[in-house]
Protein backbone atom coordinates (compact mmCIF):
# COMPACT_ATOMS: atom_id res chain seq x y z
CA UNK A 1 0.00 0.00 0.00
CA UNK A 2 2.81 2.30 0.95
CA UNK A 3 4.63 1.50 -2.30
CA UNK A 4 1.44 2.14 -4.29
CA UNK A 5 0.98 5.51 -2.58
CA UNK A 6 4.55 6.48 -3.31
CA UNK A 7 4.29 5.42 -6.96
CA UNK A 8 1.04 7.33 -7.39
CA UNK A 9 2.55 10.42 -5.82
CA UNK A 10 5.55 10.15 -8.11
CA UNK A 11 3.37 9.77 -11.22
CA UNK A 12 1.25 12.74 -10.18
CA UNK A 13 4.34 14.79 -9.52
CA UNK A 14 5.77 14.01 -12.95
CA UNK A 15 2.40 14.75 -14.56
CA UNK A 16 2.20 18.12 -12.81
CA UNK A 17 5.69 19.07 -13.92
CA UNK A 18 4.89 17.95 -17.47
CA UNK A 19 1.68 20.01 -17.44
CA UNK A 20 3.45 23.09 -16.18
CA UNK A 21 6.11 22.66 -18.89
CA UNK A 22 3.45 22.23 -21.55
CA UNK A 23 1.77 25.51 -20.66
CA UNK A 24 2.43 28.38 -23.04
CA UNK A 25 5.03 30.76 -21.69
CA UNK A 26 4.34 34.40 -22.40
CA UNK A 27 7.17 36.88 -22.54
CA UNK A 28 6.69 40.59 -22.00
CA UNK A 29 9.77 41.26 -24.09
CA UNK A 30 9.21 42.64 -27.57
CA UNK A 31 12.04 41.82 -29.91
CA UNK A 32 12.44 43.38 -33.29
CA UNK A 33 14.70 45.20 -35.67
CA UNK A 34 15.03 48.65 -37.17
CA UNK A 35 16.70 49.30 -40.51
CA UNK A 36 18.47 52.60 -41.05
CA UNK A 37 19.44 53.31 -44.65
CA UNK A 38 22.02 55.88 -45.67
CA UNK A 39 22.04 56.99 -49.29
CA UNK A 40 25.01 59.31 -49.42
CA UNK A 41 28.64 58.86 -48.45
CA UNK A 42 31.37 61.24 -47.29
CA UNK A 43 28.56 62.28 -44.98
CA UNK A 44 27.60 62.70 -41.35
CA UNK A 45 24.31 61.56 -39.79
CA UNK A 46 22.94 61.90 -36.27
CA UNK A 47 21.89 58.40 -35.30
CA UNK A 48 20.69 56.64 -32.15
CA UNK A 49 20.37 53.01 -31.20
CA UNK A 50 16.60 52.41 -30.98
CA UNK A 51 16.65 48.95 -29.33
CA UNK A 52 18.29 47.25 -26.38
CA UNK A 53 20.75 44.72 -27.75
CA UNK A 54 22.12 43.18 -24.56
CA UNK A 55 25.16 45.11 -23.39
CA UNK A 56 24.70 47.73 -26.14
CA UNK A 57 28.42 47.89 -26.89
CA UNK A 58 29.22 49.36 -30.28
CA UNK A 59 30.22 45.95 -31.68
CA UNK A 60 26.89 44.48 -30.57
CA UNK A 61 24.75 47.36 -31.75
CA UNK A 62 26.51 47.70 -35.12
CA UNK A 63 28.32 44.39 -35.72
CA UNK A 64 29.51 45.41 -39.16
CA UNK A 65 29.84 48.61 -41.16
CA UNK A 66 31.69 49.90 -44.22
CA UNK A 67 35.42 50.24 -43.66
CA UNK A 68 36.42 53.52 -41.93
CA UNK A 69 32.86 54.25 -40.78
CA UNK A 70 33.33 56.50 -37.77
CA UNK A 71 31.24 57.25 -34.70
CA UNK A 72 31.59 60.42 -32.62
CA UNK A 73 29.99 60.42 -29.19
CA UNK A 74 29.28 63.69 -27.42
CA UNK A 75 28.88 64.78 -23.83
CA UNK A 76 27.63 68.15 -22.65
CA UNK A 77 30.71 68.55 -20.46
CA UNK A 78 33.48 67.20 -22.67
CA UNK A 79 32.19 67.80 -26.20
CA UNK A 80 33.14 65.18 -28.78
CA UNK A 81 35.18 62.23 -27.63
CA UNK A 82 37.77 60.38 -29.63
CA UNK A 83 36.48 58.81 -32.84
CA UNK A 84 35.43 55.16 -32.93
CA UNK A 85 36.33 53.69 -36.31
CA UNK A 86 35.35 50.45 -37.99
CA UNK A 87 38.35 48.65 -39.46
CA UNK A 88 37.34 45.97 -41.93
CA UNK A 89 38.30 42.55 -40.66
CA UNK A 90 39.19 43.86 -37.21
CA UNK A 91 36.12 45.61 -35.76
CA UNK A 92 35.55 48.88 -33.90
CA UNK A 93 38.59 50.72 -32.59
CA UNK A 94 39.42 53.94 -30.79
CA UNK A 95 42.91 55.44 -31.10
CA UNK A 96 43.89 53.50 -27.96
CA UNK A 97 42.54 50.06 -28.82
CA UNK A 98 39.37 48.01 -29.35
CA UNK A 99 36.28 50.04 -28.52
CA UNK A 100 34.21 49.14 -25.47
CA UNK A 101 31.90 52.13 -25.95
CA UNK A 102 28.25 51.63 -25.07
CA UNK A 103 25.57 53.06 -27.35
CA UNK A 104 22.52 52.81 -25.13
CA UNK A 105 19.07 53.76 -26.44
CA UNK A 106 18.56 57.48 -25.76
CA UNK A 107 22.07 58.59 -26.63
CA UNK A 108 22.58 60.15 -30.06
CA UNK A 109 25.89 60.20 -31.90
CA UNK A 110 27.39 61.30 -35.18
CA UNK A 111 27.90 58.52 -37.71
CA UNK A 112 30.25 59.21 -40.61
CA UNK A 113 29.98 57.14 -43.79
CA UNK A 114 33.29 57.56 -45.63
CA UNK A 115 33.79 58.60 -49.23
CA UNK A 116 33.85 55.76 -51.72
CA UNK A 117 31.45 53.57 -49.75
CA UNK A 118 29.06 51.55 -51.91
CA UNK A 119 25.55 52.89 -51.49
CA UNK A 120 23.03 52.50 -50.06
CA UNK A 121 24.30 51.46 -46.65
CA UNK A 122 21.74 49.73 -44.45
CA UNK A 123 22.40 49.21 -40.78
CA UNK A 124 20.08 46.88 -38.92
CA UNK A 125 19.59 47.44 -35.22
CA UNK A 126 18.35 44.27 -33.53
CA UNK A 127 17.10 43.96 -29.96
CA UNK A 128 14.33 44.49 -27.45
CA UNK A 129 12.03 47.47 -27.30
CA UNK A 130 12.86 49.28 -24.04
CA UNK A 131 9.81 49.11 -21.78
CA UNK A 132 8.68 50.12 -18.30
CA UNK A 133 9.92 53.15 -16.43
CA UNK A 134 12.70 54.49 -18.60
CA UNK A 135 15.37 57.06 -17.75
CA UNK A 136 17.35 58.49 -20.63
CA UNK A 137 21.10 57.98 -20.05
CA UNK A 138 21.76 61.51 -21.36
CA UNK A 139 20.94 64.20 -18.83
CA UNK A 140 20.08 67.72 -19.97
CA UNK A 141 22.12 70.42 -18.21
CA UNK A 142 21.15 74.09 -18.48
CA UNK A 143 23.20 76.31 -20.77
CA UNK A 144 24.71 73.38 -22.66
CA UNK A 145 24.23 71.15 -25.69
CA UNK A 146 23.14 67.54 -25.32
CA UNK A 147 23.08 64.90 -28.06
CA UNK A 148 19.96 62.93 -27.29
CA UNK A 149 17.28 60.67 -28.78
CA UNK A 150 14.08 58.87 -27.91
CA UNK A 151 14.75 55.68 -25.96
CA UNK A 152 11.96 53.85 -27.76
CA UNK A 153 11.40 53.22 -31.47
CA UNK A 154 8.43 55.54 -31.83
CA UNK A 155 8.07 58.49 -34.21
CA UNK A 156 6.08 61.23 -32.52
CA UNK A 157 6.32 64.93 -31.75
CA UNK A 158 8.30 65.87 -28.67
CA UNK A 159 5.17 67.52 -27.29
CA UNK A 160 3.17 64.28 -27.37
CA UNK A 161 2.39 62.43 -24.14
CA UNK A 162 3.88 59.21 -25.52
CA UNK A 163 7.26 60.95 -25.81
CA UNK A 164 7.17 62.46 -22.32
CA UNK A 165 9.83 64.98 -23.24
CA UNK A 166 10.50 67.43 -20.37
CA UNK A 167 10.60 70.62 -22.48
CA UNK A 168 11.63 73.88 -20.81
CA UNK A 169 11.28 77.44 -22.05
CA UNK A 170 13.81 78.38 -24.78
CA UNK A 171 14.86 74.78 -25.45
CA UNK A 172 16.23 74.54 -28.98
CA UNK A 173 16.30 71.35 -31.03
CA UNK A 174 18.60 70.89 -34.04
CA UNK A 175 18.19 68.06 -36.56
CA UNK A 176 20.99 67.31 -38.99
CA UNK A 177 20.05 66.83 -42.63
CA UNK A 178 22.19 63.94 -43.86
CA UNK A 179 21.43 64.69 -47.52
CA UNK A 180 22.26 68.39 -47.33
CA UNK A 181 25.01 67.93 -44.72
CA UNK A 182 23.66 70.91 -42.82
CA UNK A 183 21.44 71.56 -39.84
CA UNK A 184 17.75 72.09 -40.52
CA UNK A 185 16.00 75.19 -39.21
CA UNK A 186 15.92 74.80 -35.41
CA UNK A 187 12.82 74.26 -33.29
CA UNK A 188 12.27 76.36 -30.16
CA UNK A 189 10.02 75.71 -27.20
CA UNK A 190 8.03 78.62 -25.79
CA UNK A 191 6.57 77.99 -22.36
CA UNK A 192 2.79 78.12 -22.55
CA UNK A 193 2.76 78.20 -26.36
CA UNK A 194 4.58 75.06 -27.48
CA UNK A 195 7.13 74.24 -30.17
CA UNK A 196 7.90 76.55 -33.08
CA UNK A 197 10.07 76.39 -36.16
CA UNK A 198 10.57 80.05 -36.93
CA UNK A 199 7.08 81.52 -36.61
CA UNK A 200 5.34 78.25 -37.45
CA UNK A 201 3.88 76.20 -34.63
CA UNK A 202 5.24 72.72 -35.28
CA UNK A 203 6.73 70.04 -33.06
CA UNK A 204 10.11 68.47 -33.67
CA UNK A 205 9.47 64.84 -34.52
CA UNK A 206 12.55 62.63 -34.66
CA UNK A 207 12.52 59.57 -36.91
CA UNK A 208 13.04 56.15 -35.33
CA UNK A 209 16.77 55.84 -34.71
CA UNK A 210 17.39 59.52 -35.30
CA UNK A 211 19.01 61.76 -32.70
CA UNK A 212 19.30 65.49 -32.35
CA UNK A 213 21.15 68.28 -30.60
CA UNK A 214 19.26 69.95 -27.78
CA UNK A 215 20.38 73.27 -26.38
CA UNK A 216 18.94 73.98 -22.95
CA UNK A 217 18.76 77.65 -22.10
CA UNK A 218 20.69 78.85 -19.06
CA UNK A 219 17.34 79.71 -17.44
CA UNK A 220 16.18 76.07 -17.63
CA UNK A 221 16.37 73.78 -14.59
CA UNK A 222 20.01 73.04 -13.76
CA UNK A 223 19.69 69.42 -14.87
CA UNK A 224 16.77 67.61 -16.37
CA UNK A 225 16.28 63.93 -17.03
CA UNK A 226 14.06 62.58 -19.78
CA UNK A 227 11.99 59.91 -18.03
CA UNK A 228 8.93 58.13 -19.33
CA UNK A 229 6.85 55.03 -18.92
CA UNK A 230 6.50 52.96 -22.07
CA UNK A 231 4.78 49.62 -22.57
CA UNK A 232 3.87 47.74 -25.71
CA UNK A 233 0.21 46.75 -25.41
Amino acid at each position, binding site marked *: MRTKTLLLAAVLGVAMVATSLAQAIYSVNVVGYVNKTFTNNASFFIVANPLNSGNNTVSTVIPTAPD*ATTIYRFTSTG*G*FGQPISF*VEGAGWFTPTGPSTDVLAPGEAFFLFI*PAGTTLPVTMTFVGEVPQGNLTNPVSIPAGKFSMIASQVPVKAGLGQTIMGFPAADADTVYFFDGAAQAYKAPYSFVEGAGWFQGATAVEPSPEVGEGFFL*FADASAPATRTWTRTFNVQ
Partner: protein
Amino acid sequence: MKKLITLVVLLASVAYLQAQGTVNFANAAATRVNYSASVPVLGGTGVQVGQFTVGLYYAPLSAGATPADVLWSAMSLLTTTGIAPAAGRFLGGVATTPSSTAGGVDAYFAVRVWQNTFASYEEAAAGGGYRNLTTTIFRNATGNPSSVPPGAAAAMSGFTGVNNVVPEPGTIALGALGALGLLFIRRRK
Protein backbone atom coordinates in the same frame (compact mmCIF):
# COMPACT_ATOMS: atom_id res chain seq x y z
CA MET B 1 38.96 99.05 -14.87
CA LYS B 2 35.82 98.91 -17.02
CA LYS B 3 37.95 99.24 -20.13
CA LEU B 4 40.18 96.39 -18.97
CA ILE B 5 37.19 94.12 -18.36
CA THR B 6 35.76 95.02 -21.77
CA LEU B 7 39.10 94.24 -23.40
CA VAL B 8 39.36 90.88 -21.64
CA VAL B 9 35.79 89.98 -22.65
CA LEU B 10 36.50 91.07 -26.23
CA LEU B 11 39.70 89.04 -26.39
CA ALA B 12 37.92 86.03 -24.91
CA SER B 13 35.16 86.37 -27.53
CA VAL B 14 37.72 86.59 -30.33
CA ALA B 15 39.51 83.53 -28.95
CA TYR B 16 36.19 81.66 -28.86
CA LEU B 17 35.37 82.64 -32.43
CA GLN B 18 38.87 81.67 -33.49
CA ALA B 19 38.53 78.17 -32.02
CA GLN B 20 40.75 75.76 -33.88
CA GLY B 21 39.72 73.28 -36.52
CA THR B 22 39.68 69.53 -35.99
CA VAL B 23 40.40 66.59 -38.29
CA ASN B 24 40.12 62.87 -37.70
CA PHE B 25 43.71 61.70 -38.22
CA ALA B 26 42.82 58.27 -39.60
CA ASN B 27 42.81 56.44 -42.89
CA ALA B 28 40.76 53.75 -44.63
CA ALA B 29 41.60 50.53 -46.42
CA ALA B 30 41.51 52.47 -49.70
CA THR B 31 44.12 54.93 -48.43
CA ARG B 32 46.35 52.66 -46.40
CA VAL B 33 50.08 53.19 -46.09
CA ASN B 34 51.71 50.84 -48.57
CA TYR B 35 55.23 50.01 -49.47
CA SER B 36 56.10 51.22 -52.92
CA ALA B 37 55.40 48.77 -55.70
CA SER B 38 59.14 48.88 -56.41
CA VAL B 39 60.06 47.30 -53.05
CA PRO B 40 60.83 43.58 -53.52
CA VAL B 41 58.40 41.17 -51.78
CA LEU B 42 56.71 43.90 -49.72
CA GLY B 43 55.79 46.12 -52.66
CA GLY B 44 52.16 47.20 -52.61
CA THR B 45 51.33 45.72 -49.22
CA GLY B 46 50.49 47.67 -46.10
CA VAL B 47 53.32 48.51 -43.73
CA GLN B 48 53.38 46.38 -40.59
CA VAL B 49 51.56 47.12 -37.37
CA GLY B 50 53.73 48.63 -34.65
CA GLN B 51 56.83 49.33 -36.69
CA PHE B 52 56.19 52.78 -38.10
CA THR B 53 55.36 56.24 -36.88
CA VAL B 54 52.80 58.27 -38.81
CA GLY B 55 53.06 62.04 -38.62
CA LEU B 56 50.39 64.58 -39.52
CA TYR B 57 51.82 67.83 -40.87
CA TYR B 58 49.94 71.08 -41.07
CA ALA B 59 50.10 74.58 -42.58
CA PRO B 60 47.43 77.30 -42.69
CA LEU B 61 45.90 78.38 -45.99
CA SER B 62 48.14 81.45 -45.96
CA ALA B 63 51.07 79.12 -46.78
CA GLY B 64 50.10 79.05 -50.47
CA ALA B 65 47.34 79.49 -53.01
CA THR B 66 47.24 75.78 -53.85
CA PRO B 67 48.77 72.67 -52.24
CA ALA B 68 51.45 72.70 -54.95
CA ASP B 69 52.54 76.18 -53.82
CA VAL B 70 53.11 75.11 -50.21
CA LEU B 71 56.72 74.43 -49.29
CA TRP B 72 57.58 71.55 -46.96
CA SER B 73 59.44 74.06 -44.83
CA ALA B 74 56.08 75.72 -44.10
CA MET B 75 54.61 72.47 -42.80
CA SER B 76 54.85 71.76 -39.10
CA LEU B 77 54.37 68.42 -37.36
CA LEU B 78 50.98 68.46 -35.65
CA THR B 79 50.78 65.00 -34.11
CA THR B 80 52.00 61.43 -34.50
CA THR B 81 50.54 57.97 -34.12
CA GLY B 82 51.46 54.40 -35.02
CA ILE B 83 50.34 51.80 -37.54
CA ALA B 84 47.42 49.92 -35.89
CA PRO B 85 45.22 47.94 -35.68
CA ALA B 86 45.80 46.51 -39.18
CA ALA B 87 48.62 46.70 -41.72
CA GLY B 88 48.78 50.11 -43.33
CA ARG B 89 46.07 51.56 -41.10
CA PHE B 90 46.33 54.29 -38.52
CA LEU B 91 43.85 55.76 -36.03
CA GLY B 92 45.45 58.86 -34.57
CA GLY B 93 42.31 60.40 -33.11
CA VAL B 94 41.19 63.99 -33.37
CA ALA B 95 43.97 66.42 -34.27
CA THR B 96 43.45 70.09 -33.50
CA THR B 97 45.05 72.78 -35.63
CA PRO B 98 46.84 75.78 -34.11
CA SER B 99 44.78 78.97 -33.83
CA SER B 100 46.06 80.03 -37.27
CA THR B 101 43.21 77.90 -38.64
CA ALA B 102 39.77 78.58 -37.21
CA GLY B 103 37.28 75.75 -36.81
CA GLY B 104 35.48 74.89 -40.01
CA VAL B 105 38.14 76.51 -42.22
CA ASP B 106 40.25 74.49 -44.67
CA ALA B 107 43.96 73.95 -44.08
CA TYR B 108 46.88 72.13 -45.70
CA PHE B 109 47.90 68.74 -44.39
CA ALA B 110 50.36 66.00 -45.28
CA VAL B 111 51.24 62.60 -43.89
CA ARG B 112 54.71 61.20 -43.44
CA VAL B 113 55.54 57.71 -42.24
CA TRP B 114 58.86 56.49 -40.91
CA GLN B 115 60.30 53.45 -39.23
CA ASN B 116 59.85 54.02 -35.51
CA THR B 117 63.42 53.11 -34.66
CA PHE B 118 64.11 56.68 -35.81
CA ALA B 119 63.03 59.68 -33.76
CA SER B 120 61.84 61.70 -36.73
CA TYR B 121 61.18 61.62 -40.44
CA GLU B 122 64.35 63.58 -41.05
CA GLU B 123 66.46 61.05 -39.14
CA ALA B 124 64.83 58.20 -41.02
CA ALA B 125 65.50 59.96 -44.32
CA ALA B 126 69.15 60.39 -43.38
CA GLY B 127 69.29 56.75 -42.28
CA GLY B 128 68.36 55.50 -45.74
CA GLY B 129 66.64 52.28 -46.71
CA TYR B 130 62.91 51.80 -47.00
CA ARG B 131 62.31 53.67 -43.82
CA ASN B 132 60.47 56.78 -44.74
CA LEU B 133 57.42 57.39 -46.84
CA THR B 134 55.72 60.63 -47.64
CA THR B 135 52.62 61.95 -49.29
CA THR B 136 51.90 65.12 -51.19
CA ILE B 137 50.43 68.10 -49.42
CA PHE B 138 46.64 68.19 -49.63
CA ARG B 139 43.92 70.65 -48.72
CA ASN B 140 41.32 69.43 -46.24
CA ALA B 141 38.29 70.75 -44.39
CA THR B 142 38.34 70.98 -40.61
CA GLY B 143 35.50 70.54 -38.14
CA ASN B 144 34.38 73.22 -35.75
CA PRO B 145 33.70 71.93 -32.24
CA SER B 146 32.70 75.47 -31.19
CA SER B 147 30.02 75.99 -33.80
CA VAL B 148 26.32 76.07 -32.89
CA PRO B 149 25.55 73.21 -32.65
CA PRO B 150 29.04 71.71 -32.30
CA GLY B 151 30.59 70.06 -35.33
CA ALA B 152 32.50 66.77 -35.34
CA ALA B 153 36.06 66.49 -36.65
CA ALA B 154 36.34 66.46 -40.45
CA ALA B 155 37.45 63.28 -42.19
CA MET B 156 40.79 63.38 -44.01
CA SER B 157 39.07 63.21 -47.37
CA GLY B 158 41.98 64.91 -49.13
CA PHE B 159 44.35 62.12 -48.12
CA THR B 160 44.85 59.61 -50.91
CA GLY B 161 47.30 57.22 -49.29
CA VAL B 162 51.05 56.82 -48.96
CA ASN B 163 52.77 54.73 -51.57
CA ASN B 164 55.88 56.49 -52.68
CA VAL B 165 59.15 55.58 -51.08
CA VAL B 166 61.85 58.05 -50.25
CA PRO B 167 64.89 58.13 -50.01
CA GLU B 168 65.83 58.92 -53.53
CA PRO B 169 68.41 56.79 -55.37
CA GLY B 170 71.12 59.36 -54.56
CA THR B 171 70.74 58.73 -50.82
CA ILE B 172 70.85 54.97 -51.28
CA ALA B 173 74.01 55.31 -53.39
CA LEU B 174 75.59 57.48 -50.70
CA GLY B 175 74.74 54.87 -48.06
CA ALA B 176 76.22 52.09 -50.18
CA LEU B 177 79.39 54.13 -50.71
CA GLY B 178 79.72 54.60 -46.94
CA ALA B 179 79.33 50.86 -46.35
CA LEU B 180 81.98 50.10 -48.96
CA GLY B 181 84.31 52.57 -47.28
CA LEU B 182 83.84 50.86 -43.91
CA LEU B 183 84.51 47.48 -45.49
CA PHE B 184 87.67 48.82 -47.09
CA ILE B 185 88.94 50.22 -43.75
CA ARG B 186 88.28 46.92 -41.96
CA ARG B 187 90.13 44.97 -44.64
CA ARG B 188 93.15 47.26 -44.38
CA LYS B 189 93.28 46.73 -40.62
